[in-house]
């Protein structure tokens, strides 16, 4: 157990003065708490469980990011997967965090603002399942070959289910949010972090090193190979881009901040530059 302190920056410029009053209604609080895997043990002791409308406290500032995610599309009720990420991003984050069902607030050591644990199990499950699917697609269609092939597919899927469950048992999944998440980033930046971490829950690790000149540390691991890899950086940048271009119930200043952050990700987080820029 660690003890830590925070200093609250200006509430206007972080967006917390705008979003704080909006989250302060019990139906929203009930809903967001129950559907995003909040682990109550980790939001007490000063984190805001008993004072969740106080936008100087971490829980309210997390709620603000969830509010932005959920209501920034003009027609926010349309969260169809075939729409853009401004619409389905909230659903994606919701279902990922609900699946992992363990969202914690912690002090951290100052190095990270959020960490997803056990994305390796999800990645293993996703990759292995698609291998079984690939096998199944290539099965012969004449008896008895198709019977044998189908049996192997069944065994493959059963094996993935069992080993995936064992993986989950030994490495329980969770997402930890640290002080920097609540106090160093504005509300759109926090929303981007949630989208980014949710992509990791989906089992998509980073697969490349940061390019030369990257602000994230040239040559270090943690980048995505390119935009088409559709990794966590692409999800985050695309969300920021949509928020900048079409976000509603917000301010031009916060949208401008999202644009700058989106461009930073595009410039620095892909081994191969995507070749476009947000204007």
């Amino acid at each position: 157990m660690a003890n830590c302190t925070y200093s609250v920056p200006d509430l206007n410029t972080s967006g917390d003065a705008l979003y704080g009053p909006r989250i302060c209604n019990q139906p929203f609080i009930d809903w967001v708490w129950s559907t995003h895997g909040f682990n109550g043990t980790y939001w007490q002791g000063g984190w805001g469980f008993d004072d969740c409308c106080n936008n100087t406290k971490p829980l309210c500032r997390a709620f603000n990011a969830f509010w932005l995610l959920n209501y920034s599309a003009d027609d926010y009720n349309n969260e169809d997967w075939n729409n853009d990420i401004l619409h389905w991003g909230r659903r994606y984050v919701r279902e990922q965090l609900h699946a992992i069902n363990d969202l914690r607030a912690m002090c951290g050591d100052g190095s990270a603002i959020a960490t997803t644990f056990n994305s390796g199990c999800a990645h293993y499950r996703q990759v292995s399942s698609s291998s079984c699917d690939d096998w199944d697609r290539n099965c012969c269609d004449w008896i008895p070959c198709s019977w044998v092939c189908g049996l192997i597919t069944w065994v493959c899927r059963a094996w993935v289910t069992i080993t995936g469950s064992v993986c989950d048992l030994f490495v329980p999944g969770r997402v930890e949010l640290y002080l920097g998440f609540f106090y160093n980033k504005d509300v759109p930046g926090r929303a981007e972090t949630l989208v980014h971490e949710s992509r990791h829950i989906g089992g998509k690790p980073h697969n490349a090193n940061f390019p030369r000149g990257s602000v994230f540390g040239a040559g270090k691991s943690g980048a995505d190979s390119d935009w088409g890899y559709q990794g966590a950086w692409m999800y985050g940048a695309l969300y920021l881009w949509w928020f900048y271009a079409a976000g509603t119930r917000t301010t031009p200043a916060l949208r401008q901040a999202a644009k700058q952050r989106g461009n930073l990700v595009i410039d620095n987080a892909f081994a191969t530059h995507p070749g476009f820029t947000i204007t």
Partner: protein
Amino acid sequence: MASRWVRLSVFTLGAIAVGVYIAVSQSQRRADSVGPSQSPRNPFNDNDASRALHDFLAAAYTQSDDGDEAYKRALERLRSQAEAVVPEIARIEATLRETDYPTRFALILAASELRHPAALPWLRTVALSRIPAERSSDPHSFSTVAEETILRTMAVDGIGNLARDNNNDANEALFQCLATPSLSIHRAAVQQLLQSPNVPRERIVSALPQDEHFLLDLRRIDVREAPQVRNPQQTLASGFQASGIREPGEGTETHSQKAEGHGPASPPPSHTGAEQGSGHTSPRSTHNPPPTTFRS
């Protein structure tokens, strides 16, 4: 044969015991506690320029029915005393904690929106100032260099506003930006120079390192033209790929197939919060209105 089954059973039981131990120890891990330290004091002075800046920032970060009008009025007032506002911006920025990136960003945004030559020296200073060494040991998660770079690209865009008004000093400042070591600052400066009148492309080419010439050809596209995520539902964590499909325009979700695990998370209530919640263990809202401004 029997001893083999005994060994297998012992191994299995041992594995289960280890798993249970890990699960229990995880669940019993003590949570951290947190509390506020001294919060920053109100940095604004009691003079016209400071009040105009304060009011502009309040308007820029407020959304209301008459928000656009309020913003225009605040911006007009800010611009009417631009020469007095710039030193105030610089003074306040110097008082802020380095990690107060949102407020520092807001001040640079204000200087950019002035679109006044008086803002150029400070914007240039910000854009060209050396970026402090990385303070994070895990820059992938959080990078102080990234946050500092965002501030500088915003300053570059502010300089670009002036360059488009045929301000030659602004153009020269943008070229100076190309001599910094940051790719993002180069990208921002190139984009501004390309939009600036009377700047030959050849001069930009010659000012850029060879391996950054691609910055000249970046596509300035709308987000709708960018490659989008294909089938995001296929990347959901296990057990959720069969979650509910929402009827367009409906407030309820219909489950085409019952998902495993926790089941699909329901959609949110209306953003006005008119619906009744049913949670019993969630945090309770209080009647204390949240603070909305700097606390002195």
